[in-house]
């Protein structure tokens, strides 16, 4: 690849940033190892296909993969299949070809009831049943990705919550759909009361066809320069422990794993609990 440019994003880049956020999370992207996709032919109908994706440690080739014969029709609230051992996170993918809002609602509700069962026993697989829905169709499920308007307001409005760098390629290297933006990094500034400002890398993605040309390294270089220019003493980010390629990429460049080294754990509190706290006496 002859030339590419890493530059700060502008408001006009928002639709490309949203496009890349969706590509990064799509099943075909498989950020890191261990994406396995299983189709449930006994579910859905002629207009609706149901798939489940599992992010897990690499599965030995001998592990059974459920095929049509292994998936008898089941009521939507249970999933008695042999998941690969070690599955810790599951995406449920609905390919909605032309579902009505009512059907959509029915399947969104279903997501709350899906239970994973580990092969040979009925306990919940992995260490948690985080189930999310993804749809690759032109009708994205509402709660999944930010709306373009939110991304614009939150990044380029009066109070920016994030900043972005984008990787742009010249016309001869545009994507088949005619896009010039092929990678991005989303970051913001955080604060450590012991040392001061930090740069936090929230998201970092280069389209798979554009990897291996140094775009990722160049983005990281730009980010480090931004950090130093803003007098940040370090750059923090999260990596999933099963994501070996990313872990290797960062460790090769001198990053340290604070969770392993110092014992830090990330906790979250969802909105329903915030409301509970705020309204309780």
């Amino acid at each position, binding site marked *: 690849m002859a030339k590419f440019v890493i530059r700060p994003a502008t408001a006009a880049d928002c639709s490309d940033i949203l496009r890349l956020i969706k590509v990064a999370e799509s099943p075909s992207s498989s950020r890191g190892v261990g994406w396995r996709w299983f189709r449930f032919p006994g579910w859905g109908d002629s207009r609706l296909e149901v798939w489940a994706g599992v992010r897990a440690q690499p599965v030995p080739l001998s592990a059974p993969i459920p095929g049509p014969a292994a998936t008898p029709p089941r009521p939507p609230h249970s999933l008695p299949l042999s998941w690969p051992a070690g599955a810790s996170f599951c995406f449920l993918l609905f390919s909605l070809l032309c579902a009505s809002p009512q059907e959509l609602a029915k399947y969104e509700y279903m997501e709350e009831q899906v239970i994973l069962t580990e092969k040979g026993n009925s306990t919940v697989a992995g260490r948690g049943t985080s189930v999310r829905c993804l749809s690759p169709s032109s009708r994205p499920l509402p709660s999944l990705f*930010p709306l373009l308007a939110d991304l614009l307001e939150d990044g380029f409005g009066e109070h920016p919550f994030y900043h972005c760098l984008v990787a742009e390629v010249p016309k001869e290297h545009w994507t088949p759909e005619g896009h010039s933006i092929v990678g991005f990094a989303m970051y913001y500034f955080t604060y450590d009361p012991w040392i001061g400002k930090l740069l936090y890398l929230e998201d970092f993605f280069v389209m798979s066809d554009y990897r291996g040309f140094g775009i990722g390294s160049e983005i990281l270089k730009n980010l480090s320069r931004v950090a130093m220019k803003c007098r940040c003493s370090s750059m923090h980010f999260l990596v999933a422990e099963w994501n070996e390629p990313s872990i290797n990429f960062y460790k090769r460049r001198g990053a340290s794993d604070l969770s392993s080294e110092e014992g830090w754990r990330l906790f979250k*509190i969802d909105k329903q609990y915030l409301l509970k706290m705020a309204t*309780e006496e």
Partner: protein
Amino acid sequence: MASVRIREAKEGDCGDMLRLIRELAEFENLSDQVKISEEALRADGFGENPFYHCLVAEILPASGELLGPCVVGYGIYYFIYSTWKGRTIYLEDIYVMPEYRGQGIGSKIIKKVAEVALDKGCSQFRLAVLDWNQRAMDLYKALGACDLTEAEGWHFFRFEGEAMRKLAGK
């Protein structure tokens, strides 16, 4: 009887804040890592573009007592962004002096931060806990928190000092 008030920190609180930040570092057995100065805290939190926000817990003396109000705890938070969840609030530090624990002051601070989160349109509240701090983990879980490191395998990574300079090509 003394009462507790949770209020927004003012520039004049920076001395108390630094005292408590040092106490928290001591509690985490990492006190040699506090490099920040009162001036930096003031500039970074109370300048034109604040990098953090702070709430302090103040004990208000009962009428008739000679001592004025005193700061016995704090919470430092800021706003972050998630590509999935959008606006999020992040509680960076929370600390209550040992002699004032067990009275619900920590919970009051967290509740106040939750109110700020909702007020500013945040859909999630995040924080980090050290794995040996069982008391803190229990408190957060009782309030509805979920351990994402355990549930989803997320690890905190860092490029710092020399590693960051090398990345920058300097």
